[in-house]
């Protein structure tokens, strides 16, 4: 038939119709037909990474900074297995990704062929959904459904495995609007459905004396409008608000209602307020164990409202009083209109007492650290980075560990989608490729990966990618020659036995940068710090800034595993009681 095209062409046509501008990938035997088709067109850009793991984190960074779906293209076998970490990361942090993997031709499936693996079997638990496409005529409908599923409801990664013979075969292309996806395969919550719950929730908030909003990444996934509405509602109520690691930026740091981040390394005032509140309004967060601390002591006297698009998050670890299933934007919009319709007014006298109490907690100044001496404190490095970049459109990514927590504590985010970090899975090596993805999505913005010396080495090969595509990503390494967070736990829980957490034989990061034809900078003392940061920002090239920080600094405040929100550790001298320390030791 005349209107038949090859499977590989269907892939590209589907991507184009879905509005895909860029694909992050790495070629190999089982995807050669798709790469051949890619070569013959100009509408979709391909970013060649240096390891498939980098491709998927780059796609995550692209997706989270732009709100679009990230697309990955890799080959069969090792190509597919290398993206498993990233798929799991995207699953945990609800990032919309479509990952295309090549597969050996169908007649070889099951024969232990070269570069064969059971990709759909391996990725089943770490994707929202996956497909092995055996019929070229189903390829376009699978692609359109995959994009819809990746973005629909709680976003997540979807994988499409395409045998090589299907890429070569001829078939017909079906357009997006011709595809009907059965409703049970999607999640379409309607706020009308939850009308009574919403009214109940709003009434509960109006009667609160000590309310707190607890904001999560769901607000960011719901789009920028959701953040606006959340801010508006919090302003109307006049309530304090705290954000999870994933929710930073939903409410600006400088907002008068913001108490900053909560949880294990969150703000003292935020955790205390969570502990003592009488009404908790959880919007798009999931009571993660990093947030709740010990469950039996978690906010014992509060009524809890939980807005989540994923019903399985309701009553999963914390029982709530008013669950609302739905999209943040729709639900909060409805809440505001109910509040206005019913002319609710919060008890301002009680609210004032509540704020006074919170302000007392703030006086503890939990982020306080000793900043004496010539040596750079990691906290100070992040503070200076913030001060010198706050007037620029800046995206911050991080790896995982102490530097990540210091970034979350000391970098002040005023907008959503500017902060990209691996929260749920805690993937070291996420930040640099994610920064590459963010820079691809925002060529003119400043993108900084706040990294640790250990994490950065997990995907350092992507330097080559950054240089090839002229991506002026800045890597800001808080170099303490340790896996800092591991060392901190060993100090606090394992008698200071620093088993394998010292990173010996680190590269000279300046020379490393230079060997890639990037710029390498180093700051050894506080005097040099500002100059290095300024130079880093002004350089129109990829930069590694190697910041030598004090080696054994700990990240405080901290709720140790096994402790509750009101048992925060503010410094090293404050010991956890022995019983909960013993109990906490076995936890993660």
């Amino acid at each position, binding site marked *: 038939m005349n209107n038949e095209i090859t499977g590989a062409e269907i892939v590209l046509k589907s991507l184009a119709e879905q509005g895909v501008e860029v694909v992050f990938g790495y070629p190999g035997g089982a995807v050669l037909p798709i790469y051949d088709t890619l070569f013959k067109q100009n509408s979709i850009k391909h970013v060649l990474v240096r390891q498939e793991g980098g491709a998927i984190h780059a796609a995550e960074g692209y997706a989270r900074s732009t709100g679009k779906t990230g697309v990955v293209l890799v080959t069969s076998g090792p190509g597919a297995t290398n993206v498993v970490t990233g798929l799991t990361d995207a699953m945990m942090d609800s990032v919309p990704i479509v990952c295309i993997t090549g597969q050996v031709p169908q007649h070889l499936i099951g024969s232990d062929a070269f570069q064969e693996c059971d990709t759909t*079997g391996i990725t089943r638990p770490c994707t929202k959904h996956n497909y092995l496409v055996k019929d070229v005529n189903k390829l376009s409908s699978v692609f359109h459904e995959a994009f819809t599923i990746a973005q629909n409801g709680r976003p997540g990664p979807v994988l499409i495995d395409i045998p090589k013979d299907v890429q070569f075969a001829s078939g017909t292309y079906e357009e997006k609007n011709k595809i009907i996806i059965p409703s049970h395969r999607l999640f379409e919550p309607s706020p009308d459905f939850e009308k009574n719950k919403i009214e109940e929730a709003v009434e509960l908030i109006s009667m609160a004396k000590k309310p707190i909003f607890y904001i999560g990444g769901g607000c960011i996934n719901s789009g920028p409008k959701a953040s606006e509405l959340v801010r508006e509602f919090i302003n109307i109520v006049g309530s304090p608000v705290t954000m999870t690691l994933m929710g930073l930026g939903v409410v600006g740091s400088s907002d008068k209602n913001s108490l900053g981040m909560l949880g294990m390394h969150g703000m003292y005032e935020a955790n205390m307020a969570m502990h003592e509140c009488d009404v908790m309004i959880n919007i798009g967060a999931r009571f993660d164990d990093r947030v709740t601390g010990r469950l039996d002591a978690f906010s014992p006297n509060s009524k809890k409202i939980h807005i989540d698009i994923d019903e399985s998050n309701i009553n*999963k670890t914390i029982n709530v009083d008013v669950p609302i299933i739905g999209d943040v934007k729709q639900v909060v919009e409805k809440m505001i209109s109910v509040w206005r319709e019913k002319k609710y007014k919060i008890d301002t006298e009680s609210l004032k007492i509540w704020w006074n109490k919170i302000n007392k907690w703030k006086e503890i100044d939990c982020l306080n650290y000793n900043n004496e001496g010539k040596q750079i404190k990691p906290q100070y490095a992040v503070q200076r980075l913030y001060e010198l970049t706050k007037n620029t459109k800046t995206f911050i990514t991080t790896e995982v560990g102490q530097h990540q927590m210091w970034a979350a504590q000391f970098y002040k985010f005023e907008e959503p989608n500017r902060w990209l970090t691996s929260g749920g899975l805690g993937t070291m090596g996420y930040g640099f490729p994610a920064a590459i993805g963010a820079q691809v999505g925002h060529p003119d913005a400043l993108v900084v990966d706040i990294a640790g010396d250990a994490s950065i080495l997990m995907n350092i090969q992507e330097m080559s990618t950054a240089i090839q595509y002229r991506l002026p990503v800045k890597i800001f390494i808080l170099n303490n020659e340790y896996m800092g967070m591991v060392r901190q736990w060993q100090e606090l829980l394992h008698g200071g036995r620093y088993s394998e957490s010292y990173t010996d034989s680190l590269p000279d990061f300046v020379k490393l940068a230079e060997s890639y034809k990037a710029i390498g900078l180093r700051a050894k003392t506080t005097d040099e710090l500002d100059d290095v940061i300024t130079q880093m920002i002004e350089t129109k090239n990829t930069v590694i800034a190697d910041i030598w920080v004090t080696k054994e600094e700990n990240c405080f405040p901290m709720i140790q*595993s096994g402790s509750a929100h009101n048992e925060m550790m503010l410094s090293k001298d404050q010991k956890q009681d022995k019983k909960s320390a013993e109990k906490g030791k076995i936890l993660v």
Partner: protein
Amino acid sequence: MNKSVYDSPDQVSETKRHILTVLVDNEPGVLARVIGMFSGRGYNIDSLNVAEVSNDENISRITIVTHGTSEVVSQIEKQLLRIVPVHSVTNLDQEGSSVEAEVALVYIYISDSNKKKVYQLCDLYRARKIENENNTTIFEIAGASERVNRFITEINEITKVEIVRSGPVAISSIQKNEEE
């Protein structure tokens, strides 16, 4: 409450047997998705049964017998619903009244001394002898799991047996309107 890094503060309800019936798109991998959810999240499967439904070959019905507290089972239901090809999940215990049955095939080692007792017991339980080419004594018994259990206990007291069981299937017995 469910599992978490931390001990659960709430009163845990009693562990009970639940029969879940799950309607799914009949597509490759769907059973693996369902089973994988159970093993991946540490839930129990006591028995599992899959078959196409009579009126639509594109849909299969998976019947799962599990046990857990009502909180755990409610979490299982919600996790099942997250799986894309899952249409619906019904907890037949929660619905109140349902009918369940399973089939067991029993190979009975028979001798002149126990023959009479075996046949009497099979008669009592309305177990049916299945004719076969080798002329061995194989009985089929169908019914609620409880009844099959009792039969197996009693026949075991008489002689040696080999048993295969299908695991239960169940259906809601609540009256429905025609349109539904």
